[in-house]
């Protein structure tokens, strides 16, 4: 089947699953699982093609001007991820049906689970930066719905929101980063295939660093690197299958996937190496060691996942062929054992009724198959032969040994707590004396142990026959490091007595020692300042801080006082004018002399100004109206001086009417409030008004320096009789040449009439009917 329909089938299955669940509640889980298995097989069958160098490409519609194209490409890296997504999905789907059985939201679960799966497939198969982003966001949304699946609990709601905010905020940064990358790469730069060939252009571009920073922000939030890691701990509110699938095997690997995918185009620079190694290393060490102090089984595992994600980012940052190879093997091994362990944790929670590490012990004989799965996974996690985890860890150490000793030291220090966590989460609950638990533990149903046991066995089998992984991983490495000649990966358990083996021994011994000393360490940690801070306090603090800032801003800007709104608006306008005058004015152009003034004009002007002041200050209502009338008539007189008698007439008629209407309205309104504004406020307003007056006066003085313009309207004068058969030029312009305005004008008057009628005369019909 081509790639597009494969992804589409996932979304269609998501839509169909809730219906199926309603019709056949008991069979849905098996059906979904079989569907995923079919997808898995369909992908697995393409492996020979990929190995022979064929890359499947498919295009389903595009928006060429946007750079967006629904292009898909199946190469080694995509295939590796596609197999992980569908393979582990098969086990998880089978598991979920029993784990959530009789949960009222199971239909909803299937919908989001399958939608997530399809989005994740789209993400890894996309061959276009913007298409990749589209699926990236969809995975965030699906993850949000799945974390908040048990939304009756406020903790689940909060965790869901946190994960969404962090990943979507990172996604927004990623969007701009990808836009920048696409733009920098030039023509066709949004296609990943093209992008890989533009490495030099991108590295030399002045915007390389901002683009890289934005892309990395997206990848780090998704893969829960420091300081964005706490959402993953909160995400443990999700049901166990979700944690196993999204928050260990697939979703959180999307960030790592992006880094691997963009490595050929963006990677290999100093900035890339330093950032990834520092952030990844810090995450690995910090989160790895803090795993020891977690109380909740799932949170212990989540911390260990963070540690692994840090290691992967660090390895991609190192960027040597050996480290990329190690990253890919480690990624596969981790997906297998961590997925298994999360499902085991779900079994324990489901059957024993608690996830508190301290309360769990001696489950072994009562849950033998779950215990088997747990021990197999713990073996892989601790990196003990013959599990695949051992080969992965050896690879990591060998990659580290190519670099300065501090890198290797960090890797060993990062792995030691992982060994201890394998003991805490994979061994400790099952061995030792049995304790009392809320529920009487017994073995989980077959659908719930089959998946984890299969994953555990797969982890060991692949460790024994690592050659089986050879073609797949080889293809993936070839994708990530295209220039490197392809050579066998030398996956085998026994390498002879190498330095890496010695480091393995050191980390194993160290891990066992830490495991033995975990209680004293825990007590020591509890005494540290800051140990009591709740998970995600940084996120809450940022959110609270943002809210406080926002609140303060709202209180300043939107206090509800009309005067303050006006004041701010007017001050800004004045500021703009003042700034322009300061920067653009040419005061030396001011006209010299003042010209002569007619006495009448001075009188009228003075009258207008005085009347305006009176209108603004008047205590009596009628006085204010009268003053307004004087202003209007004064302006009409001024119009007359300008040789515009028709305008003057109109103005005086309108003014007279306005005054009459005002006076009529005034009679119906209450008396003035004698209250005066407080002195400082008054002073401020006066100052602002004076500043405004000064600026405006300066402005118009400059304006008068403008030379008169040629008579633009000669045209109208010449044509009014001829074309419009009119003699009053203004009338002609009004009615004939300016038909558009006249329509607007007529509409204004109609609107005013209807509006006044609507506001004053219409009464709601129900008013009389109400009690």
């Amino acid at each position, binding site marked *: 089947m081509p790639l597009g329909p494969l992804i589409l089938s996932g979304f269609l299955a998501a839509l169909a699953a809730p219906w199926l669940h309603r019709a056949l509640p008991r069979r849905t889980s098996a059906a979904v699982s079989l569907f995923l298995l079919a997808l898995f097989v369909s992908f697995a069958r393409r492996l020979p093609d990929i190995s022979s160098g064929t890359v499947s490409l498919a295009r389903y*519609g595009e*928006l060429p*001007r*946007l*750079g967006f194209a629904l292009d898909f490409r199946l190469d080694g890296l995509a295939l590796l991820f596609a197999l992980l997504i569908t393979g582990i999905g098969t086990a998880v789907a089978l598991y979920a049906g029993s784990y959530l059985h009789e949960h009222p939201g199971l239909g909803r679960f299937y919908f989001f689970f399958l939608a997530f799966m399809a989005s994740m497939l789209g993400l890894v198969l996309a061959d276009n930066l*913007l298409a990749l*982003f*589209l699926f990236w*966001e*969809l995975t965030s949304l699906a993850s949000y719905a799945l974390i*908040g699946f048990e939304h009756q609990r406020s903790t689940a709601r909060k965790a869901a*929101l946190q994960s*969404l*905010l962090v990943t*979507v*905020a990172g996604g*927004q*940064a990623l969007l701009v980063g990808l*836009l*920048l990358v696409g733009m920098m790469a030039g023509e066709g730069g949004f296609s990943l295939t093209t992008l890989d060939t533009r490495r030099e252009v991108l590295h030399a571009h002045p915007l390389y660093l901002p683009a890289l920073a*934005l892309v990395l922000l997206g990848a780090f939030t998704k893969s829960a690197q420091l300081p964005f890691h706490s959402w993953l701990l909160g995400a443990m509110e999700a049901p166990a299958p979700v944690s196993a699938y999204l928050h260990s095997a697939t979703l959180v690997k999307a960030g790592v996937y992006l880094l691997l995918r963009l490595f050929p185009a963006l990677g290999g620079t100093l900035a890339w190496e330093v950032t990834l190694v520092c952030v990844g290393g810090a995450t690995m060490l910090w989160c790895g060691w803090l795993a020891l102090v977690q109380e909740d089984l799932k949170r212990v595992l989540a911390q260990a996942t963070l540690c692994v994600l840090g290691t992967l980012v660090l390895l991609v940052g190192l960027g040597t062929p050996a480290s990329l190879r190690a990253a890919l093997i480690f990624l596969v091994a981790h997906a297998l054992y961590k997925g298994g362990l999360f499902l085991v944790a779900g079994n324990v929670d489901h059957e024993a009724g608690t996830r508190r590490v301290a309360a769990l012990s001696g489950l072994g004989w009562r849950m033998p198959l779950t215990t088997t799965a747990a021990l197999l996974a713990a073996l892989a996690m601790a990196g003990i032969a013959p599990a695949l985890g051992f080969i992965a860890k050896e690879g990591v150490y060998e990659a580290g040994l190519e670099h300065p000793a501090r890198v290797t030291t960090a890797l060993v220090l990062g792995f030691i707590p992982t060994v201890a966590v394998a003991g805490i989460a994979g061994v400790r609950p099952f061995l030792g004396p049995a304790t009392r638990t809320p529920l009487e533990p017994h073995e989980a149903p077959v659908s719930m142990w089959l998946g984890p046991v299969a994953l555990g066995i797969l982890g060991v089998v692949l460790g024994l026959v690592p050659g089986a992984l050879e073609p797949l991983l080889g293809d993936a490495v070839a994708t990530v490091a295209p220039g490197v000649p392809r050579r066998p990966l030398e996956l085998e358990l026994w390498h002879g007595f190498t330095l890496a083996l010695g480091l393995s021994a050191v980390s194993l011994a160290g891990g066992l020692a830490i495991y033995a000393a975990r209680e004293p360490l825990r007590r020591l940690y509890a005494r540290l300042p800051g140990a009591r801070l709740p998970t995600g306090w940084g996120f809450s603090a940022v*959110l609270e801080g*943002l809210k406080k800032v926002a609140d303060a*801003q709202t209180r300043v*800007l939107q206090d509800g006082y*009309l005067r303050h*709104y*006006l004041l701010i*608006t*007017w001050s800004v*306008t004045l500021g*703009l*004018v003042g700034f*322009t005058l300061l920067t*653009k004015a040419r005061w030396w152009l001011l006209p010299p002399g003042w010209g002569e003034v007619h006495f009448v004009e001075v009188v009228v002007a003075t009258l207008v100004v005085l009347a305006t002041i009176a209108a603004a200050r008047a205590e009596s209502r009628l006085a204010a109206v009268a003053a307004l009338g004087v202003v209007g008539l004064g302006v009409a007189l001024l119009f007359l001086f300008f040789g515009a008698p028709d305008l003057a007439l109109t103005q005086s008629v309108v003014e007279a009417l306005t005054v009459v209407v005002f006076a009529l309205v005034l009679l119906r309104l209450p008396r003035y409030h004698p209250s005066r504004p407080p002195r400082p406020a008054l002073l401020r307003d006066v100052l602002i008004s004076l500043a405004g007056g000064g600026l405006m006066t300066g*402005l118009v003085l*400059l*304006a008068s320096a*403008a030379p008169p313009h040629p008579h*633009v309207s000669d045209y109208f004068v010449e*044509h009014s009789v001829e*074309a419009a058969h009119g003699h009053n030029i203004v009338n002609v312009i009004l009615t004939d040449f*300016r*038909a*558009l*305005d006249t*329509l*607007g004008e007529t509409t*204004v008057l109609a*609107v*005013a009439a*209807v509006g*006044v009628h*609507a*506001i004053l005369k*219409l009464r*709601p*019909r*129900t008013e009389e*009917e109400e009690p």
Partner: protein
Amino acid sequence: MNLPTLTSADFFPMLPAIIMVVGACILLLSEVFLSAHSSRGYQAVLTAITAVIAGVVALKMVFEPAREVFLGFGALDPFSSFLTFVVCVALALATLTSAGFLRKRGAERGEFYALMLFATAGMSLLAISNELITLFVNLEVLSISTYALTSFLRRGTRPSEAGFKYFILGAFSSAVLLYGAALLYGATGTTHLTGMVLPLANAVRTNPALVYTGALLVAAGFAFKVAAVPFHMWTPDVYEGAPTPVTALMSAGVKAAAFAALVRVFVTVGPGLDPQLPLTLFSTLALLTMVAGNLLAIPQRNVKRMLAYSSIAHAGYLLLGVAALFATAPGEAFSLLGSTSLGTTATPQAVARAEALRGILFYLLAYTVTAVGAFGVVSVLERREDEERGTAWDLERFSGLAQRRPGWAFAMAAFMLSLAGIPPTVGFLGKLLIFRSAVDAGLIGLTIIAVLSSAAGVYYYLRVVVYMYMRPVPEGAHALERNWMTEFALVVSTVAVVVLGIAPGPVTEWLVQAGHLLGR
């Protein structure tokens, strides 16, 4: 000698406005024959049909050859025609949501719909205005209609307070705009935008202060209408106090029309000015508007008010698009008129500007269908009794909506995702287009700030979704009445939000036509 003659072709661009004015007159006349208790269900339908007809005509005009009409007072180009289409869409959807809203309040009257039609006619005329006084008059048509609509419901203190605040601040900004227009007229001796270009270049040399102050005052007037920070103060109070369907029309239509006029004025006179001026002006406004708009919305628990703040933030993204328009080859002359197909000789700058323009237009359409839909959901949830206490729009009203009305909850979730710019919705594509053109224009820093602020937006939009899907239904929640017209509008908006988000094909094709322009 050539005599100026107006042919029927000159009136063609006015056709949508004329259709709406005629529709308004029919509604007003029909009101004469009705008693207070007559059924008025036909009025909303009639208004919506009028809007649809006007919208179809506008869409047809998109493919007309661009030209100046009415002796240059108006301009028929794909830009104005597409904007007319957008405001008609806003009107049609807002009208459908008003029928049930008004009936519940006993205030369903022909005058209301007539005023809505007049306002939209004003918006459509504003989009084609190509002269400062024409611009002012048409701006007043839509402003005065919206003042009246804001105070239309007379119960309680909110409508009149909103109306008064809107009126005073609006009249003030009109005065500022007019004063700026007068200064520009003084500097150039003409009020025709196209005719202003040459004298303006001259005036910039002889009297720069006059020109720049005039341009800035005009910009300030428009900044008020598009609710750009710091001219936005009226927005939340007016949006909260106005009847919800009117708020929907204001947030989508008034904004679209004001952006049309703003872009037209500055695209036309911009080349005469210092090339840095429009760029600096719009970048600063965009920056302030995006940051403040999003911050203002964060603490807001009143959903209607939150949507008001969010509309400010969206004006910020649009201003980013406008800034991108002017950042591409600043100072180079170009025109909104222009060929409807990009020739092979088009320069990269012309292509980039066409992209920016297309981004603005698509964003306006995306915002219109989303915001009107969101206000539609708000309007069906609010209850008149709670309005005076201000609790009618509290987030609590959305608690457990997914269980009570899954359809409404789904629609609202789609609108919220679209406003937040999350795929696969139309809002995502709109943001993508705007950000893309901003990045191409080199406004990297501004785009990063846009992205960070929109990440903050995710918080307040998705909080609504959390309440709908993850909270239990509150005790004693009031019954939710259904209304087929509102639900029809919600279905149309939701389908548009989702389908255009997945397959924007047809619209982008129109926009290829609408946004094309050539350097002259």
